[in-house]
């Protein structure tokens, strides 16, 4: 079944406004693993009849990587161009599957003229459930799962409980890692690390974190960030290939509801 995806330009031509803009993000648009998360989230929105728009080719990198790497010029260029487009469509609410773009759009566009109500996709899915627009059957019931907090969602913006509530609603049994929530341990990708070799050290950060996740002895490692997903997946490949699935919360819901 194909996905129903309309661009903002198409919404505009039809003279209607969607409920929400889905900010896909660069990883969600181009990275093979992250694209699956994007598609899963769209499946959920299609299933719940959410009217959403995407910017499509009008979207550009949020600038998170540039900002955290110290390239404020490039960040602001990206931000101002994106804000111009977002404001031209009179966007109010944005949902994104990437905690980095979530943080940047929510907190860092404000000073440059872009004020939006920005949600992480787990927050939006939770809202769909509480407004009874999405019902959960929970076909994955009782499987054990551990959840890795993305830094920019959890520590960075205080979203700890909603992803856990979703895990609970699906009926999965959450086993917490020793380092979780406020004291969660980074996957190693943030601050532009995703795009460079790590500095010399005893081990890679993702290996350290994946080992902790594997020690939780679950069949699924869940996360809410395309970068965390890649890092944990690489960690699993290194330490215990095939023993555990690394999935985004959106993918869990697609599996659970057989969407």
């Amino acid at each position, binding site marked *: 079944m194909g996905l129903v995806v309309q661009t903002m330009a198409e919404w505009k031509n039809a003279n209607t406004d969607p409920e929400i803009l889905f900010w896909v993000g660069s990883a969600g648009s181009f990275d093979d693993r992250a694209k699956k998360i994007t598609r899963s989230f769209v499946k959920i929105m299609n299933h719940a009849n959410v009217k959403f728009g995407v910017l499509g080719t009008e979207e550009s990198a949020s*600038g998170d990587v540039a900002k955290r790497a110290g390239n404020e010029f490039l960040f602001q260029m990206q931000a101002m161009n994106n804000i111009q487009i977002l404001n031209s469509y009179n966007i109010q609410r944005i949902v994104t599957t990437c905690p980095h773009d979530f943080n940047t759009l929510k*907190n860092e566009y404000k000073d440059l003229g872009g004020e939006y109500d920005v949600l992480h996709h787990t927050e939006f899915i939770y809202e769909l459930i509480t407004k009874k627009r999405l019902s959960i059957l929970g076909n994955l019931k009782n499987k054990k799962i551990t959840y890795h907090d993305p830094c920019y969602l959890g520590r960075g913006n205080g979203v700890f409980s909603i992803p856990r509530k979703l895990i609970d609603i699906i009926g999965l049994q959450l086993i917490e890692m020793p380092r979780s929530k406020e004291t969660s341990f980074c996957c190693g990708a943030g601050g532009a690390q995703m795009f460079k070799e790590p500095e010399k050290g005893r081990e890679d*950060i993702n290996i350290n974190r994946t080992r902790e996740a594997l020690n939780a002895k679950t069949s699924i490692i869940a996360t809410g960030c395309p970068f965390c997903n890649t890092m944990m997946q690489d960690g699993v490949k290194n330490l215990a290939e095939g023993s555990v699935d690394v999935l985004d919360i959106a993918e869990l819901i697609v599996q659970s509801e057989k969407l």
Partner: protein
Amino acid sequence: MFSLSNSAFLIIFLLSSLLFYKNFRKIIRNIKLGGDAGVFENKRERWRNVLFIAFGQKKMFKKPLVAILHLVVYLGFVIINIEIIEIILDGILGTHRILFSPKWSSLYNFCINSFEILALLVFVACIIFLIRRNIIKISRFWSPEMKGWPKSDANLILIFEILLMSAFLIMNAADLSLQKLAHTESYLQLKYPNTGNFLISGMISSLMQGISISNLILIERFCWWFHIIGIFGFLNYLVISKHLHIILAFPNTYFGSIKPKGQFNNMSSVTNEVKMMLDPNIDPFTEPVSTSQPVRFGAKDVTDLNWLHLLNAYSCTECGRCTAECPANVTGKKLSPRKIMMDVRDRVEEVGRGIDLKGKDFKDEKSLLHDFIKPEELWACTSCNACVEACPLSIDPLSIILELRRYSVMEESSAPTELNAVFSNIENNGAPWQFSASDRLNWKDDE
């Protein structure tokens, strides 16, 4: 009334206060070497932070056992120091226990007993702290940056505290012994009025039987002088020690960020330039040049940082909770957020000494970046905010790391090569990878 010892006391008191004032003002001057740190809105929430994080030590309680020990030392320090009022008055006026009066002897007795119980608890807590540092060797106290002075500093503070508490208790013990002897030796009665027994020093006093009156007086006086000179000394020791946090923790938590941790500050100096670049109607040559233009983007040296960064550095007590949580450090990279803070303080003190010697235009060949903090440390950071979360008094090492990165990238163009490739991809394709912008919606038709 005015004797040699009053004058000596007064001189020591005034000199040590003056010295502290002078050195503390120097610290404030050094902090002000930093640039503007913006506005501090939402006073209510800031006072709340001072109340909970500084006074209430909320964040310390992530490690409950240490938190209780630390609370004991903190409360002991604050409460026992009430006694200093009496000691200073006695010192200046040549009196003995001036605040004691038979009229409120039970209140006096209650106060001193509370101080004594706290003093004993502080004594025990400091011994446990010494054991943790030197015998159990808690790993965060043995990182490379903790060699030399930082290690001695930590131990010295604890030994200082132990000696001060001992002097306080032995002083009271000798006093009690003299009070008992006053029953038979009436000439002692006026000088050593009966205050009632004290809990802890009472026990020590019972070990002092058989010591002659003159020796008891000697012990009492020695401990009195040792205690008060120790406190004046400690006050002046603060300015060169990590222990300065007992003062600066309060302003530091007040000024600490109340924004979401993920949010990095906006550089308005860059905004102006970017706006000019993007707006075709602005002619950069006719546009008035902004006078608030910074000398450089980001920070190369401490003077490029803002004053809050420098206050952070002076507030750091080198506990290492940040470093123990840092994913880069835990996996063996060079980066240690605590070292970043220590480097900033070391460097700003060096600059401060230069200014003392050569005036306010002092310049040297050194800089924070490269001479103190290496690019290898800078680029190991994942910006995960674990260090910021871990700090019990709201220090933000990440914001300093960001400023140094900004300088490296925008002024030195010395980002790691892979990142330069990412920058040009973002510029050309609107994504960190080398994909064509026109393929952005292709995910829709995948599978």
